[in-house]
């Protein structure tokens, strides 16, 4: 599904922040991406999300060499990837329902065609009662779940989450982890970037550890 070969990345003329990354993300797999702050977790997620291009090496996603893709092709490919940002990035002028339905809307689907699907997912993440609420009145946990729902509504093959438990209490963190596990069981490959060791200890999964720009893999 995703293949990195000797990937390196530097910003401008600065030093390489990521060096010689070679790994694969297989379909239906689950992995934690961890490492100290500033190790490059978010940068690696941006590479996985096609929001950055490597300065060297090869990235192949869903059978495509990303270096050769046009902007439109990247946008199309990005629809197969869901991402959960640490700061949620919900649109404040839209209701929770509309935020979650956004990926389907940009695909050009009519509202009637996805309404039941969105409501079902809202209920599943426990936001059924909050579907008409605007993000500014949602709690941190609710925003997090809305962000996760938006990331999975289009049934992505790959789900990326950047510190999804960074802003929630341990109990909610555990519930969110269970949510990711359920999504993985339903067929989505999951990459969770976190430095929360307690969270990783709760689930036996592959660990990708970034340190000093290099990646160490613990299967």
């Amino acid at each position, binding site marked *: 599904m995703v293949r990195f070969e000797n990937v390196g990345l530097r910003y401008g003329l600065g030093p390489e922040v990521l060096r010689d990354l070679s790994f694969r993300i297989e379909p239906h797999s689950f992995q934690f991406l961890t490492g100290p702050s500033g190790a490059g977790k978010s940068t690696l997620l941006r590479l996985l*999300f096609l*929001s950055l291009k490597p300065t060297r090496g090869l990235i192949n996603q869903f059978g495509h060499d990303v270096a050769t893709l046009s*902007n*439109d092709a*990247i*946008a*199309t490919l*990005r*629809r197969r990837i869901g*991402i959960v*940002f640490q700061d949620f*990035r*919900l*649109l404040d*002028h*839209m*209701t929770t*329902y*509309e935020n979650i339905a*956004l*990926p389907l*809307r*940009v*695909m050009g689907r009519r*509202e009637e065609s996805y*309404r039941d*699907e969105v409501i*079902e*997912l809202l*209920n*599943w*993440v*426990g*936001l059924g*009662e*909050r579907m*008409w*609420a*605007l993000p500014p*009145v949602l709690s941190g*946990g*609710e925003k997090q*779940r809305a962000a996760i729902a*938006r990331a*999975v509504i*289009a*049934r992505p093959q790959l789900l990326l989450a950047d510190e999804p438990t960074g802003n929630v209490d341990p109990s909610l963190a555990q*519930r*969110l982890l*269970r*949510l990711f596990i*359920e*999504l993985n*069981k*339903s067929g*989505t490959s999951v990459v969770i970037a976190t430095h929360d060791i307690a969270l990783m200890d709760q689930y036996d999964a592959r660990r990708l550890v970034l340190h000093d720009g290099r990646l160490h893999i613990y299967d």
Partner: protein
Amino acid sequence: MVEHGTAEVTTAPRALPRALPRFETPLVPRQSISARALVAVVAIMTFLASLTIGAVILVAGSAAAWESDVAREVTIQVIPAPGIDVDTTVEQAAAVARAFRGIDKVQPYSKEQSTKLLEPWLGSGLSLDQLPIPRLIVVKLSPGAKLDIDGLRRQLGEKAPGATLDDHRGWIERMRTMAGTAVATGIVILLLMIAATMLSVTFATRGAMAGNKPVIEVLHFVGAKNVFIARHFQRHFLLLGLQGGIIGGAAAILLFALASLISGWISGSAAGAQTAALFGSFSIGPLGYIAVLVQIGLIAGVTAWTSRHTVNRTLESID
């Protein structure tokens, strides 16, 4: 869909204010402070630019009218001199003019009328018998006729010696120069005004767009193609530009219509005559209204184009 129902995530309903059900809110927020500020800037600049257009059209129209009025008139002058009977010469010159082709009306000024013409400068109650006051004959040309000035001048020399013909050429030249300068100045001011409008609208649009960067980023991250994002923003800002343009343009059109109406009301009075002499009918005419409408479209177009350009630059910075 994922297998729902197995997750343990549930929350108790909370008693928070509920927004009205909305299924398809526009992707670009409509009622933001920056959007209202943009509408206000566009409205004000459109109003000012429309006033400038109107002023240029009024000046150009009035200058053309003055020039045409002056060009449709020539004057025969009889200057008192030894051996010349002024009254006889005036009659002879008037007779020559009346018989000449292309002349509509001949109006000789009597001694009393000539004295009256000088009253503003010399005061009333003066006996001007001792002064060599020239006598004037105002000759109006027939509409569309081309007068043979040299022929008339020759005939006057033959049949009314002492009468001279003034065709106002020097006046017309000066009038033409003055009118041309006024119109050229107006056009330069108009161009500067349009440039200032475009720049203000461009900066105001960029300002309004700055608040929308998170929207562009989120749309980008959920897989929207650049053309999709740009189209939504362009449409949104085109509507804002049109809204502001229509408000400013309509205000200017109302002002011109009102000015035209008021000048119609006071047309019989001295003030009305003064205003009419300066500005004509005070109406910008169909051309003026069309120019204001074109300007509204132009400004809305600039707003839309700037938003598209800013979206593209934002997307480039994200990638």
